């Protein structure tokens, strides 16, 4: 460590610069690697991902940065409560529902990995920039896009659609200096993506892309006397738009505009349960039935007993779905309980704490959408991910929702506190020696003495 040799303020600029660049380069490299690896979502063992491992290794660095985001501490506490609740529930139910060790890890580790990725992304976007981080994340997710079990069935729908969306919209984030150009680029990208996605017959994905485009345009509506609209009004708009789009897409799919496969699937789903959503996601019936059956949730690694399965099947058949098939036996209840919605899975695995956590996620997603539309601050990818999170909370299985959730939380949904708590840079000019310290300095000192951040 070089020792400062002169009065601090006139420290030679060159030395200072050279010294900082080395560490900055290293930090940037680490941040880039963390974002890339978080994107790969490459599983190591029992749901632990490489990105999660790297995020954990970088935890001492990002923890302080993460705590500067509004709600991040609450999220951390909720997550911790979830783990305690999951283990407590599993222990409590062990007499009737023996948990498997592998199942416990399989349910806890992916969530831990995702949380570590979120922390690393929060730090990385400060070191680099949100656009670069998103692009690196997207490049990472391209690497493992082909590993989806249904990739061969439709490479775009089950492989490249999400990474491409993230990469292209992430690249648009980098044109931040020119808002008009950025908007244009985002709209063109969204148009192209919607075209390809609709042709591949992915209905919900097309809906998100169209909704994002509409909300983006609405955000840039001509300014009236009142520059911002109310958050509530914005959310009502999102809801109405979603409903309208749902009806329109259902009609389009039934008419065959989204391809034959989408038409057949839609017809079948509408036929089985009378509605596209209930027919497409009969697991909702199982979720509701299980919630009524065991209101406190199940716990980590817990297997369903025949009674639970019976209750779930009854819930599903109430929707007009025939649950006596291999899918329900093997995939929903074969190795653990999976009900294919973030809220349901979080509730089953983590109990009531999981419900609170999903409530917090929903709050963040709606908060982001409301804020963006009311104050015209949203970005295309942010809006897209928030919409998708809202969908996944109700209709997306937890494991496949986690990567997008990590990116949404790590880059868009959490808001940084840009207040006086901002750390004073280490190369500040010192006040005249002996001058009375400012109240901020004194506060920082007191906090320091109480064991707070060192550079405060």
């Amino acid at each position, binding site marked *: *460590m*070089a*020792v*400062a*040799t*002169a*009065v*601090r*303020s006139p420290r030679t600029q060159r030395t200072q610069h050279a010294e900082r660049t080395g*560490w900055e380069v*290293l*930090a940037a490299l*680490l941040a880039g690697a963390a974002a890339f690896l978080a994107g790969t979502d490459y599983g190591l063992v029992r749901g632990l991902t490489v990105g999660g491992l790297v995020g*954990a*290794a970088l935890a*001492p*660095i990002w*923890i*302080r940065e993460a705590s500067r985001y509004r709600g991040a501490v609450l999220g951390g506490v909720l997550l911790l409560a979830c783990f305690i609740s999951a283990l407590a529930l599993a222990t409590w139910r062990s007499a009737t529902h023996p948990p498997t060790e592998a199942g416990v890890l399989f349910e806890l580790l992916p969530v831990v990995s995702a949380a570590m990725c979120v922390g690393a992304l929060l730090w990385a976007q400060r070191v680099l920039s949100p656009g670069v981080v998103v692009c690196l994340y997207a490049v990472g997710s391209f690497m493992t896009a082909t590993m989806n079990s249904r990739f061969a069935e439709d490479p775009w729908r089950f492989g490249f659609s999400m990474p491409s969306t993230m990469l292209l919209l992430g690249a648009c984030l980098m044109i931040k200096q020119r808002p008009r150009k950025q908007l244009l680029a985002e709209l063109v990208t969204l148009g192209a993506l919607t075209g390809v996605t609709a042709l591949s017959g992915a209905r919900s994905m097309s809906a998100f892309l169209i909704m994002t485009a509409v909300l983006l345009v609405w955000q840039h509506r001509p300014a009236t006397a009142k520059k911002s609209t109310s958050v509530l009004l914005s959310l009502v708009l999102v809801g109405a738009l979603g409903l309208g789009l749902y009806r329109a897409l259902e009609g389009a799919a039934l008419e065959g505009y989204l391809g034959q496969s989408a038409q057949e699937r839609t017809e079948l789903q509408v036929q089985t349960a009378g509605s596209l959503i209930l027919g497409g996601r009969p697991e909702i019936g199982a979720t509701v039935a299980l919630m009524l059956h065991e209101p406190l949730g199940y716990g980590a690694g817990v297997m369903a007993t025949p009674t639970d399965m019976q209750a779930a099947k009854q819930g599903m058949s109430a929707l007009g779905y025939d649950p006596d098939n*291999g899918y329900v036996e*093997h995939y929903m209840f074969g190795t653990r309980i999976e009900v294919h919605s973030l809220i349901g899975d979080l509730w089953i695995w983590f109990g009531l704490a999981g419900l609170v956590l999903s409530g917090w996620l929903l709050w963040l997603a709606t908060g982001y959408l409301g804020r963006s539309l009311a104050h015209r601050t949203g970005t295309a990818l942010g809006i897209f991910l928030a919409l998708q999170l809202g969908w996944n909370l109700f209709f997306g299985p937890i494991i496949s929702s986690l990567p997008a959730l990590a990116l949404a939380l790590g880059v868009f949904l959490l808001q940084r506190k840009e207040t006086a708590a901002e750390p004073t840079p*280490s190369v*500040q000019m*010192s*006040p005249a*020696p*002996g001058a*009375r*310290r400012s109240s901020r*300095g004194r506060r920082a*000192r007191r906090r*320091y*003495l109480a064991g707070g951040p*060192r*550079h405060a």
Partner: protein
Amino acid sequence: MDLRDYVAALRKRWYIVAALAIIGASAAFAQAHASPPQYRAQSTVFVSIARGATTQELVQGSTFTQEIVQSYAKLATMPVVLDQVIYDLDLDTTSKELAEEITAENPLDTVIIEIDAVATTSTGASDLANSVADELTTTITNLSPSSNKKSAVEVTVVARADPPEEAFAPRTRLAALVGFTGGFGLGVVIAVVRALLDTRVRTAAEIEQLTDVGLLGAIPRRRGQRRARGAITAIDPHNVASEAYRRLQTNLQFLDASSRVRSMVVTSSIGGEGKSTTSINLALAIAEQGQRVLLIDADMRRPAVADYCGLEGAAGLTTVLIGKVELDDVIQVWGDANLHVLTMGEIPPNPAQLIGSPRMAALLEEARAGYDVVILDSPPLLPVADGAILSRLTDGALVVANCRTIHRPQVLEAIDSLEAVDARCLGIVANQVRDTAAHTYYGQPEQSWFARLLAAVVRHREPRQQGYPAAGS
């Protein structure tokens, strides 16, 4: 903790990380090595309907088999099968224990039952799998509905288990890797936690980050030398430390352009941080510049200047304060003709009163009138108030912080104590800073043990830089 602190924490306690990683890997390896090998063998059973005269019967039979095959799979781990297996193979176990070693699965939409058996020997595993398959066949035949004394369900062992060539467990390499990773992670956690809990100031840069008071100088510590006590500036003018004191003197000159600092207190947070050494050497460095300097030992608790300078200490500051003698009578010239020293004299019973007395203020006025710079060596700030009181009587205080012993809160508290009495803190002097190449440029090159070893082998040492004329001579 930023990236730098993190790397520093890992570098500092790398041995903990390394040791725990090695311990983890060895323990896991030993544990895996000691555990018995486990072999897995698989046999497959096919369940079908015995007869079906018409297509309709065949379809019904097929539906029946598909519905019942899962129950048949469950039979494989039940006493009805396993008791017989234990009897056949003459095993020393119970059916409940044996059930743990057997898994029977029915792949989705098939009428096949796959039986996996785990045992400690290769043949044991295959025998067990085959025996379970055989017994399952018999049991299913017995249990299934029959017509004309012939079972309606036909069960055939379609693939008999072969003795596996390799054990699937223990996987020693994987275990060692997991142990290594676990130990490594634990080591990192310990290193980080210890770094967070360790509030000691290590480097001058840390002091700089700690407070908004300027860092005026950094006095290096020399390797292999516990302390550079005394008047190093006079004894070895080309020493790294001597240069550092000269730099401190220069920085003090540039501290305030409007009003020059003409009197200062050299103090510290706690004792033993190098106040006296700093004040003596700073006085010498200022005297070198041709200014008249008076060094006063105002530490009435543990006076050290007389001792360090080898001067007569019987009469001094206290003698003047109680009015026994005049200031000029007890001032001694030391080293440079420009440097005068006033030692402490007798240790008084009431130091605080003496220091706060009007006589002390008058004495300082007199000294300031007669000299260009007056330096007071004072007691530390945290234990006693003398230093803070003296600081108010002078232009300000110079706080010495020993990088080897001081903790961050102590430095902050010391500066706060100065501010509390509205005294001016001129700046901080970091003492005992780890020597680096930057500071050996004009001094004796300091080399690491590795560099010394390398130099001894290669025998290509630079000549020692000594014998330069003293600055200002």
